């Protein structure tokens, strides 16, 4: 195809958008409403995922070392733990440090434990992190069998429930996003289809005058693309403004908390790109599929 002809198709597609005012409005509105839904849901899902990831990464095994173990035994134990392939890091925390942390974590009530500073009943501890959070349970079991380990604690039960919950919510999220995506495709392409059905006579006339299928298809293809992009603009602006404000409000409150939300940049640029791409693709797909139906003459 000549560049001149492509320019002609682009001009035609713009003219058509203007001339089919109400149809354009209907298609763009359908894209806008659906992409707002998809966008909001996507932003929530990505942030939940981030929280889940933070929680997962925070899971650790606390290995209580037998009081009978001397420095050399402790070194041996540390090496043994490090040799477990799933283990990422092993950090030593002395029983004095453990007591300080305990007192701190209990707040005012913790003052009562100050009495134990003279005769500390706690154990020295190795804090172990695994490469993958899911390996925590198996690694803890393995560590528990090593010499001089009194117990290897990882929040048994709670962690398992948490992982199951995260796994389930991720799956539900993926299913919901996929469902919403297909609903969006269906809704948008259906609206575009209706606008094209209204123009089927036009397509028939074009064929009678000698237009090839490609010649007819191109302006519709471009029109679908513009409709999709136009429909994505409002959701991008709305979601960006809303997220910016939400981030400005929430981020300072969450400092030091294990729950973090994704920073505005680059996350919002990625979401905007995704919405633009989705709008464009769905617009093109909807119009091409609908025109195809009328080109089989």
């Amino acid at each position, binding site marked *: 195809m000549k560049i001149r002809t492509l320019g*002609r198709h682009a001009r035609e597609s713009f003219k058509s958008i203007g001339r089919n005012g109400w149809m354009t409005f209907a298609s763009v509105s359908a894209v806008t409403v659906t992409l707002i839904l998809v966008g909001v849901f996507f932003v929530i899902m990505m942030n939940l995922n981030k929280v889940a990831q933070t929680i997962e990464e925070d899971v650790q095994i606390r290995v209580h070392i037998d009081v009978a173990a001397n420095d050399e035994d402790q070194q041996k134990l540390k090496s043994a733990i490090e040799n477990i392939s799933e283990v990422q890091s092993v950090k030593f925390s002395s029983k004095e440090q453990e007591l300080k942390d305990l007192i701190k974590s209990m707040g005012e009530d913790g003052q009562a434990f100050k009495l134990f500073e003279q005769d500390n009943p706690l154990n020295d501890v190795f804090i172990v992190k695994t490469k993958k959070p899911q390996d925590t349970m198996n690694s803890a079991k393995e560590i528990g069998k090593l010499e001089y380990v009194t117990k290897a604690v990882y929040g048994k039960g709670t962690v398992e429930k948490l992982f199951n919950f995260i796994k389930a919510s991720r799956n539900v999220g993926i299913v919901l996003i996929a469902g919403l995506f297909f609903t969006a495709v269906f809704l948008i392409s259906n609206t575009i289809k209706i606008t094209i059905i209204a123009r089927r006579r036009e397509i028939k006339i*074009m*064929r009678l005058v*000698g237009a*090839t299928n490609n010649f007819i298809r191109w302006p519709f293809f471009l029109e679908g693309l513009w409709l999709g992009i136009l429909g994505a603009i409002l959701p991008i602006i709305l979601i960006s403004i809303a997220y910016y404000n939400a981030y400005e409000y929430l981020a300072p409150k969450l400092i030091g908390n294990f729950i973090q939300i994704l920073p505005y940049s680059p996350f919002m640029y990625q979401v905007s790109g995704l919405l633009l791409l989705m709008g464009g693709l769905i617009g093109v797909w909807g119009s091409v599929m609908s025109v195809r139906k009328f080109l089989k*003459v």
Partner: protein
Amino acid sequence: MIELQDVFKKYPNGVTAINGIDVRINQGEFVYVVGPSGAGKSTFIKMMYREEVPTSGTITMNGVNLAKLKNKKVPIFRRNLGVVFQDFKLLPMKTVYENVAFALEVIEAQPKYIKKRVMEVLDLVNLKHKARMLPTELSGGEQQRVSIARSIVNSPKVVIADEPTGNLDPETSWEIMNIFEEINNRGTTIVMATHNREIVNTIKHRVIAIEAGKIARDEQRGDYGYEN
């Protein structure tokens, strides 16, 4: 030249619209196709612009056998043919100029040539001053003139017209016929299906009468021959 040899057309519902037609139309002829409703005129005309395909037989136009023409090649074939319809078939969202220009855009003609040629044919049908109007802003006769302008903008050897005056008042019908006469005088073959007795009996040309899917009459400078 157009040649139909032993052409039959049977629709899937069992109706035989064309029941063995042999006819030859030479370059530059003006031919009326007449006959009662349901005689097969429309099918005859539709087969000429390859809207319908014969069940058997051959239709040759400008050296192309339409019975064997692949769907993909149909648009290319139609570019060398002008077609005028009773209901004008104009693109409603395009101006008069754009409707006529479209036939040249599909063959990717140079923009300068398109502009020059479209204005030429609009001048011929006396619509140059309405080039920027939409079809809905025109009268029936004017819309038909746009449709004629579009059909001849590619300088086709043949123009097929299916009841071109069917929706027009008598006065406008004569105007339209004068335009067809002028196009024919320039050497273009015209094949026109019509129910207009007065026109056929006044502007004398070859008349092919179709009845029950067969040629009942084929006369040079013939009459309409039916009561309206």
